[in-house]
């Protein structure tokens, strides 16, 4: 128990630092803003109580908001991602169900499963985030393009990190 709290605390701090110190400062073009901190919500244990999941999502979003000077934007997107996570887990569940007490990682459930799971979560999060940022439907298709391109980059980072974790 203590062990896993420490482990997730470390993942949390590393992801937030990576987002704030590195990725928030990469200004590649107006269309690509990878948000990798959402990976923290992805990695939490499958059997985590929903209320804890929601509170952790809220805290994550709020901290990112403090650093990017946009109160509420990341918070609402991350809370929504935390809320739909149990449903997405149910949709992508493997044939023989989940092992009890396991983490949703590539090591246990394989690349295809993880890719699909991460893609759905990142899409939910990025769609909410970018539409909240622009706050109108006038540039609907341009925002979709931003969502898709950013999702591609976020997914690349998330898969790289996950491969690295598996390699260890």
């Amino acid at each position: 128990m203590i062990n896993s709290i420490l482990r997730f605390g470390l993942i949390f701090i590393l992801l937030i630092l990576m987002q704030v110190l590195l990725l928030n400062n990469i200004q590649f073009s107006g269309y690509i803003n990878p948000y990798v901190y959402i990976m923290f919500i992805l990695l939490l244990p499958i059997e985590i109580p929903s209320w804890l999941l929601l509170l952790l999502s809220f805290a994550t979003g709020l901290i990112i908001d403090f650093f990017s000077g946009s109160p509420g934007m990341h918070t609402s997107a991350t809370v929504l991602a935390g809320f739909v996570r149990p449903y997405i887990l149910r949709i992508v569940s493997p044939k023989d169900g989940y092992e009890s007490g396991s983490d949703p990682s590539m090591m246990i459930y394989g690349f295809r499963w993880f890719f699909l799971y991460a893609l759905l979560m990142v899409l939910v999060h990025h769609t909410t985030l970018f539409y909240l940022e622009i706050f109108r439907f006038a540039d609907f298709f341009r925002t979709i393009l931003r969502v898709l391109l950013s999702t591609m980059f976020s997914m690349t980072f998330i898969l790289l990190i996950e491969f690295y974790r598996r390699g260890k």
Partner: protein
Amino acid sequence: MRNLLNFLARYNNLIIFLILEGIAFYLLSTRNSYHNSRLVNGVRGITHGIEEKINNTKSYLSLHEINENLAAENVALRNLLAKLSRRESSLFFSIDDSSHKQQYLHSSAEVIENSINKQKNFFTLNKGESQGIKVNMAVISAYSVAGVIVGCSGNYSVAMSLLNPDFKLSARIKSNGYFGSLSWDGRDYRYAILSDIPQHVLVNVGDTIETTGYSAIFPEGAIVGTVSDYEKFGGDFYKITILLSTDFKKLHFVDVIGNMKKTEQLELEKLFR
């Protein structure tokens, strides 16, 4: 009562979700308007320590380029000074009155936090009320428009970047003086849109666009950019794409400009509205 408890137990996730989402939307809605960026300002107090460290590293890495820019600016200023002092000496005025014709007050500042990839971009300066910075002062980077101050704390201030759809600037074509309204459309950080120029006006690619000074925020004649493309928009007006002369990706040293006669101008104008 029992039904109520059953209901709460059954939907507790949804209820927690709605409460948290409500808080998030409350935060979102209170910061969205122009004047409520004070909240952003307060929040930034918490994180500016880290931002300052990031900025220190960045500015160390680009020292060479900054030096070159400063040297070029020095030369330009010296030339201007030489011209002005010759003109001054031919006039008669009281020596005691040092501000007899000074309308704009310049002070330099450093950008410590900046963004170009959001839809509503702000940047933070390392000077605030204690150094005489006030809300609604203009921010200029090497004679070209960068933004306007929207919030100040003791030692920091937040400026709304030109790269923000809420920022409307009165600008004109330098060669013929026709003016319109300039704003950013949220696409590319290098381009902005100038609208309200009637179609009988002659526009050429490469024409210089400058500020008008009607708003009493920006001094007249500050450069905005050059025309890069124009098309007919609706029946009467052009939609002109402007290549901005400020490179927002490299924004570092800026001038904050206060208009000392602004109150006088605004009060006079108020009488006729």
